[in-house]
């Protein structure tokens, strides 16, 4: 693979002359490659630039001019595997990286929507997934949330499928799948259907629990434990009819004070042996794709419920090694300032979030006309829809959740800042399902 490089070459009369002509905007003959080793090609459009010294300690102002500079820099390309050939050429030619750069925007902390669900569909290249027949058909997508309102989804122009038989509710909640008040769960269902309009929704209103002490739109982890256990029995039972199961979880524990204190053997946040974390591992090993939102405790504009705790805020099952953990960006690819950052809490998988997905766009309008779908709560079901779309052509019996998640991370659009590879803000990058589908021959 050819890579762009910056090459420094010792000053010679012809180099000074070409540099001078370039800066005086007169025509000049570009310099040839300073060495024939390595297949180095010099960019003729890039003028030789005077460099005052080879090391910072030797920099002198007078030496920065064309007439005095001891070294000049040019731009070129070279086979990456042959860079060492040039280094060993012994002619004073040095090769430096010329990384791609981009403008870094501050994380977005505004309240207005950035783009719409149509922008999300365009960014995810969903028309091409549709051409491949990947829209979530025969895939079950469980929404562990406040409940779904099908009427609202239909009013937004969607044609949702809901499997009422497999849906479930805590014992103290009326089990009316698809008929819960329009709220957070309806937003999540809408966002999942962007990429997987043909999937079958499973309604699990675990955040409607009326457990004593809970707020209205909240639940307890034991509700999630029961829901996962029920779903696991269905998924591994003889009557299971779907190609795959995707489970979206846009919830979590906002503050460590809600948990047992650090060091307690029964603590949830950092304990892989907590019953719920064991349950998550069990259902993932059985073949379910489990996605969790990273949380809304990002340092730039954290939710008030974080109570100022923004470090190591990804915890519990949200930091489980078997789940895909989603950070959030807007439709410009800019990180949303509330999106929780890694590394995750010590004791769980440290490199969380795994990936970034889109949020803060005009979508479900579940909270009124013009209100955006926000939070990592939105990023997670957008990604869950992508997983369901891929799964409609790739059953979990063929590719395990772990292998699929690894490929999704490998194909993510890389974000070079703050550092290449995995980083605290974006994980592996922004989700890009099309190359994942192509990788698996879909």
């Amino acid at each position: 693979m050819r890579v762009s490089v910056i090459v420094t070459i010792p000053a010679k009369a012809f180099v000074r002359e070409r540099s001078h002509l370039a800066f005086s905007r007169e025509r000049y003959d570009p310099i040839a490659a300073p060495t024939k080793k390595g297949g180095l090609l010099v960019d003729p459009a890039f003028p030789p630039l005077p460099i005052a010294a080879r090391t910072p300690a030797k920099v002198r102002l007078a030496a920065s001019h064309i007439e005095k500079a001891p070294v000049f820099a040019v731009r070129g390309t070279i086979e990456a595997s042959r860079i060492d050939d040039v280094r060993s050429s012994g002619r004073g030619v040095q090769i430096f990286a010329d990384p791609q750069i981009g403008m870094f925007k501050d994380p977005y902390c505004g309240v207005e929507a950035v783009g719409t669900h149509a922008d999300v569909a365009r960014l995810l290249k969903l028309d091409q997934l549709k051409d491949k027949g990947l829209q979530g058909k025969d895939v079950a997508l469980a929404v562990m949330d406040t409940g779904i309102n099908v009427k609202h989804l239909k009013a937004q122009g969607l044609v949702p499928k809901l499997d009422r038989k497999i849906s479930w509710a805590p014992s103290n909640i009326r089990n009316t799948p698809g008929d819960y008040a329009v709220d957070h769960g309806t937003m999540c269902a809408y966002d999942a259907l962007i990429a997987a309009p043909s999937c079958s929704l499973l309604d699990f209103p675990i955040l409607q629990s009326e457990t004593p002490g809970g707020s209205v739109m909240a639940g307890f982890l034991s509700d999630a434990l029961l829901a996962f256990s029920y779903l696991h029995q269905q998924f591994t039972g003889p009557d299971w009819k779907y190609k795959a199961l995707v489970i979206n979880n846009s919830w979590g524990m906002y503050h460590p004070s809600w948990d047992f204190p650090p060091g307690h053997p029964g603590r949830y946040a950092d304990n892989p042996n907590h019953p719920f974390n064991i349950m998550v591992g069990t259902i993932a090993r059985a073949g379910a794709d489990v996605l969790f939102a990273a949380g809304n405790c990002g340092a730039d504009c954290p939710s008030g419920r974080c109570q100022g705790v923004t470090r190591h805020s990804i915890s519990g099952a949200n930091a489980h090694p078997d789940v895909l953990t989603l950070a959030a960006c807007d439709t410009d690819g800019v990180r949303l300032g509330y999106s929780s950052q890694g590394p995750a809490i010590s004791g769980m998988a440290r490199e969380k979030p795994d990936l970034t997905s889109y949020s803060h766009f005009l979508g479900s309008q579940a909270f009124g006309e013009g209100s955006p779908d926000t939070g990592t709560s939105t990023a997670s079901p957008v990604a869950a829809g992508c997983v369901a779309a891929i799964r409609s052509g790739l059953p979990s019996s063929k590719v395990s959740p772990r292998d699929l998640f690894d490929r999704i991370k490998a194909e993510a659009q890389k974000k070079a800042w703050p550092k290449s590879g995995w980083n605290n803000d974006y994980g592996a990058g922004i989700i890009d399902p099309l190359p994942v589908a192509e990788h698996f021959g879909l």
Partner: protein
Amino acid sequence: MSRDMVLMTIACPEGTPGLDRAAELLGVPTAEMDRSFGVVVLDPQKGLYAVQVHETAIKERPTADTGGQVKGPFSNPRIEPFGPTRK
């Protein structure tokens, strides 16, 4: 499910236990078990299950060597949506 219930795990390799067997493993009367929660299968390969039991019963049970079969109590924290809600 009441907040005075605590979350426990039991290992029972011989198969899914009923509430009576779970209570026996825990060393508490069956009446102290959370019937609505039941016995939740956590990891069928390891024979691991979750139950809820009255906190006072766990505190008052006689000290017994469970051979690592019983663990807990575990935290049961509140969970909330990572996004907007109407209420």
